Structure formats: structure tokens, C-alpha cells
């Protein structure tokens, strides 16, 4: 069973830390939802795990392998896949090309592509379309397909429903939940639609001002009377 483990992790850009002293774990087959007000450092935390933002203190490992010194490319090859919120597809490539390119270095690209289309069947409807011309929902689904091409063990997903219509929000979150069940992938997700995400998550973590404020089973956290205040940042 894969475990992504953060211990006392601080991270940021340049000389400034945005995330401070965060410890948490994400295991196979579970969804951990990261919630908090705007500017809490949720996306920065995900980016630091993917190698896009800099880890300045603490440790980060997957199955005992230290990731801190590794590049985004090296982390990807060790099973950590990151789906950014935007600019998450290669616009000039078709969806098929996007998928195939995301399995760089593997010989079984066709098998992986079939596998991903099996998991995300709607992709089959626009495989030959340029990614730059996709609708918001299609683009997010293509981006998710790209992350799955590397057969990750841990998926880091940054606001996958941003810009989607309300009916597509549920659909995307259902797809992610299905992935944990079918493929055993562990998912750490940042999601503005907190209630919808918590309803599908196993555990939740609340980040406020870059610090871990609360953690526990998602259902319990969602039921807490001050959850709304925490989520919207009124934590005084």
C-alpha cells in the first residue's frame, strides 16, 4: 500500500514560505480533501508536493523514498501525478496526442490509452480534437486522463471543477471517487466546492493561513458547527 507522507513541511516561492509545518498522509484508495479559504496555501501545498513550488523545511516521501530533492519529472516517474487547475493540457496537441505524450518513456502507450479511456469513457468522443478547442468539462477530463497515463499511485488534483457547470462538478468528483475504488489510487484534492468534495472524501484537512488547522474523517469535519467559519476563514 502506497503512502505519501508529509512531516512538518513548509513550502513557498522565492524566499517566502506560504505553507508552514504541515504534516499529513495520503494512502492508496482514499480521497483526502484539502479545504480552506482563498489564499490559505492549498494550491501551493499541492505544487510543493509535485515539485513546482519549493519545499523549504520538513520531509516528503512516497513509500520511504525522499522526494524533496527530486524534480517534477522525477516525482512523476515515482508515481506522484499532479493535475494543475489551469493550463493543464497541451493546447496545440489533439487529445490523443496529449494522452500519448503523457506516457513518455513507456512502451505500452496504446494499452495505457485504452485503460484510461476505459476509466474515462467520455474521452472517446473527442480524441482527435485539438485540446485548445475543448469545452471546460472536456478539458478537465482530458487533463485527468493525462495524469492517469503514468499509472500514478498518488494523484494531486487542484480544483478540478473550476469553471465547470454545476452538473459537471458532481460528475467530475464522482469520476475521482470511482478512480480510488477501481484503481486504488490515493487522491489529495483541493476543491472550492467543499461540501461536494467532502461528501466523497474519506478524510479532510483544513488549511488556514498556510497552517493545518483541523484534520479528521471528512463526514465528521463537515458536520462540525464551525466548519463554515473555518472554510471561509473566520477562525478567530
Amino acid at each position, binding site marked *: 500500500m502506497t503512502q505519501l507522507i508529509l512531516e512538518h513541511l513548509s513550502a513557498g516561492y522565492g524566499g517566502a514560505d506560504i505553507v508552514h509545518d504541515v504534516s499529513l498522509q495520503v494512502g492508496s484508495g482514499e480521497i483526502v480533501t484539502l479545504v480552506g479559504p482563498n489564499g490559505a496555501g492549498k494550491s501551493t501545498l499541492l505544487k510543493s508536493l509535485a515539485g*513546482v513550488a519549493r519545499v523549504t523545511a520538513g520531509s516528503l516521501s512516497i513509500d520511504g523514498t525522499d522526494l524533496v530533492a527530486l*524534480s517534477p519529472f522525477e516525482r*512523476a516517474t515515482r508515481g506522484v501525478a499532479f493535475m494543475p487547475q489551469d493550463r493543464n493540457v497541451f493546447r496545440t496537441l489533439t487529445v490523443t496526442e496529449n494522452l*500519448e*505524450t503523457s506516457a513518455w*518513456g513507456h512502451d505500452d502507450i496504446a494499452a495505457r490509452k485504452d485503460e484510461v479511456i476505459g476509466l474515462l469513457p467520455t474521452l472517446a468522443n473527442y480524441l482527435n480534437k485539438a485540446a485548445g478547442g475543448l469545452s471546460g468539462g472536456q478539458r478537465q477530463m482530458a487533463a485527468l486522463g493525462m495524469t492517469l497515463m503514468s499509472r500514478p499511485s498518488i494523484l494531486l488534483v487542484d480544483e478540478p471543477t473550476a469553471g465547470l457547470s454545476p452538473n459537471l462538478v458532481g460528475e467530475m468528483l464522482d469520476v475521482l471517487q470511482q478512480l480510488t475504488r477501481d484503481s486504488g489510487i490515493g487522491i489529495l484534492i483541493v476543491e472550492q466546492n467543499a461540501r461536494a468534495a467532502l461528501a466523497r472524501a474519506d478524510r479532510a484537512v483544513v488549511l488556514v493561513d498556510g497552517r493545518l488547522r483541523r484534520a479528521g474523517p471528512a463526514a465528521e469535519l463537515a458536520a462540525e458547527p464551525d466548519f463554515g467559519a473555518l472554510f471561509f476563514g473566520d477562525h478567530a
Partner: protein
Amino acid sequence: MQLLLNAIASAAILAPAAIGFTLIFTLFRYTNFAVGALMTTGAFAAWGMNELGLPIWMGGVFAVVFGAGLLLASDRIVFEPLRGRSGGTLLLVSIALSVIIDNVIRFAFGTQIRAFDLPLRPPLTFAGLRFTPETLWVIGISILATLAVGALLAFTRLGRALRAVADNASLASIRGLPVPRIEAAGILLAGALFGLSGTLAGLDLAIEPNLSLALAIPVIAAAIVGGLGSPLGAALGAVIIGLAEELTVAFISAPYKGAVGFVVIALVLLIRPQGLLGRPVERK
């Protein structure tokens, strides 16, 4: 028709270099003004091998390899330490590089006009058109090279990766692509195309250090006309520049040929800044 044939011959020289130029632009978002000097180096490399007794085609192969190596070396020494600087800064640096390369060529070979060791023979005539066998070689090799690069970019794993890195290098790295290796492959490919274009230029023009500026402007103009970022556009742009140059020679005056590139760049930037087949690109 003769004018069209001449235009295609001119375009054939420019097209590979224009494709290489646009490849570098899409990967790194800067204008490499040294393209003319790198082509001239290619011409001298092929001529040098020819002088040593090797056939011209072997000289051309050497120029392609030498051009690839030279562009990679210049990137490692000059451009890589400046990654992230503005396009204007890198343009100025490339102009300085161009001056340095030109002067190294002058130092090594002098300012004499050189030419490949070609047999003297009368031009061929066909359907009223006059052309040399070398012209046919230049056109044929250029078309093959353009098609080969187009096929590489469209149908191979490396080509798709090059397009992906050009589109979004950060995402490419996140998706597990070895971006520095792919960028190096792009630089080698562009350098090889500069070497090839240099050899083709040497078959048609006198080989001399002053060739640099005469080649750089039309190559850059061809890439801009076609749309920066579009290899097919670069080839099409080369045809348009070749045609504009030949029309200038035929109907205005040969000395004004050198100004054609500037005029066309100005017109394109006024009318359709993204070029014929290009699309707006984001700064990196």
C-alpha cells in the same frame, strides 16, 4: 515561370533555416538573430570538406552535424545561463553572437569569396526554363528536409514531445517528460537545419562572411510571415519571401532585394501579426 522557379530556388535555401528558427522561437521564445551566421558557418563547413577533396554531399552531411553541434554549444555557453531573461535581451545577445561568429569566420578563412568545386557546365533548359542541376538539387533536398521535419513533428514520439514542450514546458515536466533532453533534441534539429540551409546557400551563392546578414533577414522574415511557431508556415513564408525578392529584382532593382525582408516583416506586423498560419503565443 522563370521568375517562379527562381523564387522557389530562393525559398528552398531559406525554408529549412526558417523552420529551425521557428523551432527555437517556440521552444524558448526568443529571436535568434545568429541564424544567418550559423548558416554561413554551415556553408564554410561544407566548403572546407569540399576543399579537402570530399564530395559536396559529404560536406553537406558534415555541415549538418557541425551546425547541430555548434548551435547546441552556443546554447549551453551563451543562452542557457540567460534562460528566463526577456526576449529583447536574448535578441541582443544573439546579435552579439552573430558578430562574434562572423569575425571568427573572417579570422579563419579571410574575406575572400569562396565557392564549391563544381564542374563548369551550361544551364539546362526545359519548357523554356533555364536552371542548373544544382538548382534542382537545392529544391529537391529542401523539399525532402521540410517534409521530413513535418513528419517528425506530426507523427513521432519526439515530435509530439517537442510540440508539447513548446506549448507548455512546465506542464511537460509535471507530466514526466524529460524537458532538458527534449529541448536539446530541438536545438540539435534546428542547428542541423541551419547547417543544411548554409550548404544549400553555398550551392547558389558566393560563400563569404558577409553572407550572414543577407541570409538572416529573409529567414527571419519567412518565419514571421508564415507565423512563428508553425513549421509549415515557415516553409510557406520562405516561398513568399523568395517570390517577393525575385519580383523586386525583376521589376525594381537588384540592390533593393536586401530590403524585401524588412518591408515584408513590417507589412505582416501591421496587417496580421500572428503571420499566415501562426497563432498568438504566450510569453514564457
